[in-house]
């Protein structure tokens, strides 16, 4: 966290007037409330109480799987989802070098993954969106999207997360990038100061890139670089910017973005495609 500038603006508490005296006295008073131990005990009992809500279905599923193994002799291939949909942070990483604009959303089926994603075991209790996640993992993408849409009602943080998950599902499992984009717009409208705001903005930029809407993506990147998104994910933004500028043929600016991305700590492998595109002139002429 950045240290505060002591000169501008001066804090009220540093003055000598009535407000300063009140603030200084209030800050000097101990903050009453439950002790950390009491609070922790209560929190733990909450998670223990909540455990059966997800443990029981999990046990039932495990028993059913064992029974099926015995019955059919060999395990049926489990429907799986591309791991990049569920891995934490996956939506943030650029998916692939930019392709030429198609003007249409991709509709290929999602790739089959070799391993299932790890469940978030640290969550003390499951949210309303937990069944949606299970449906998605079972390959029921349309049902999962509808489920997330239901869970996204209201203004809670769960609703915010559900709306974001719906967008990710639409983009990565259903291949409906345009729909995902409108879901992200809805997210920005409904949760302007939400906890996932930066993630949403970055995902939005990636989708614009994938849809070939380079000008919009570039202006969103420029906007992002000037704000909180740039401070948090500056490297990722510069990687995307380099790819977009390279795809446009503006190699000088693309290589400058590559340099800035490197400075921001982006992995060199993510910059190779742009570097090759810009540094090696095309040799397809005889």
């Amino acid at each position, binding site marked *: *966290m*950045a*240290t*505060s*500038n002591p000169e501008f*603006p001066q*804090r*009220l*508490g540093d003055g000598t007037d*009535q*407000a300063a005296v*009140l*603030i*200084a*006295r*209030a*800050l*000097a*008073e*101990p*903050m*009453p*409330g*439950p002790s*950390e131990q009491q*609070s*922790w005990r*209560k*929190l733990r009992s*909450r*998670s223990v109480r909540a455990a059966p809500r997800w443990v029981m279905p999990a046990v039932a599923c495990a028993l059913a799987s064992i029974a099926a193994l015995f019955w059919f002799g060999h395990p049926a291939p489990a429907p799986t989802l591309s791991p990049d949909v569920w891995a*934490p*942070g996956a939506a*943030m990483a650029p998916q692939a070098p930019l392709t030429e604009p198609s003007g249409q959303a991709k509709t290929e089926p999602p790739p089959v993954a070799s391993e299932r994603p790890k469940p*978030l*075991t*640290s*969550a*003390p*209790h499951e*949210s309303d969106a937990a069944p949606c996640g299970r449906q998605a993992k079972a390959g029921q993408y349309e049902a999962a999207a509808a489920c997330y849409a239901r869970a996204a009602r209201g*203004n*809670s*943080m769960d609703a915010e*997360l559900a709306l974001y998950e719906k967008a990710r599902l639409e983009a990565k499992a259903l291949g409906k990038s345009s729909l995902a984009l409108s879901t992200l717009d809805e997210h920005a409208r409904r949760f*302007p*100061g*939400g*906890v*996932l*705001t*930066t*993630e949403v903005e970055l995902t939005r930029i990636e989708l614009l890139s994938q849809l070939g809407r380079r000008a919009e993506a570039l202006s969103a990147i420029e906007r992002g670089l000037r*704000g*909180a998104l740039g*401070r*948090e*994910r500056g490297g990722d933004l510069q990687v995307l910017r380099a790819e977009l500028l390279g795809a446009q043929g503006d190699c000088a600016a693309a290589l400058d973005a590559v340099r800035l991305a490197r400075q921001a700590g982006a992995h060199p492998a993510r910059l190779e495609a742009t570097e090759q595109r810009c540094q090696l002139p095309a040799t397809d002429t005889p």
Partner: protein
Amino acid sequence: MLASAAASDVVESGHDLLDRCVAGSPSAWRGLHQRYHRSALSVLRRLGVPPSHLEDACQEVFVDVFRYLPRFRREADFRTWLYRICLSRARVTRRRARMWSLFSRVSPEVGLEPIQQPFDEGQASRQLATAIERLSEAERAVFVLFELEGLSGQDIAEIIQRPQATVFRRLHDARKRFTAVLEEGV
């Protein structure tokens, strides 16, 4: 002097702790709770969460932290992220508390009063809370984070997802109103 000054040791030493939390270590969760419980409690109170709802709100904050930590990007400071959750949770809790008080006024016979907990706030803290209560929601957030939690304009801009210019404009308005309230006598 400011509350956050003593607690800005998080960024360097906290990453291992966060890693262990994400890996599911119960002792790491306990460590995280120990480290941030007091900060969360004080910022929630200063953001206007009534004492009777404070503990529940704090619990909700940590439930959210536990739930969303695997998605938390380490590029941002954990405390910034925690404050963002506190802001969101304080908003919800205040709304809920208003509904509770309205409901218990309309039909007191149903006995749905929130549980009153012992909360012996000092006189200055009470006076400060009353004055802050008169600020708008947006002004209150900026005022509390800047004046009481000691965050910089840049940090607050990150937390509330607005440009720094907006932060300082809100701070300016909040200070004017706060001073006026004190002059009126709270």
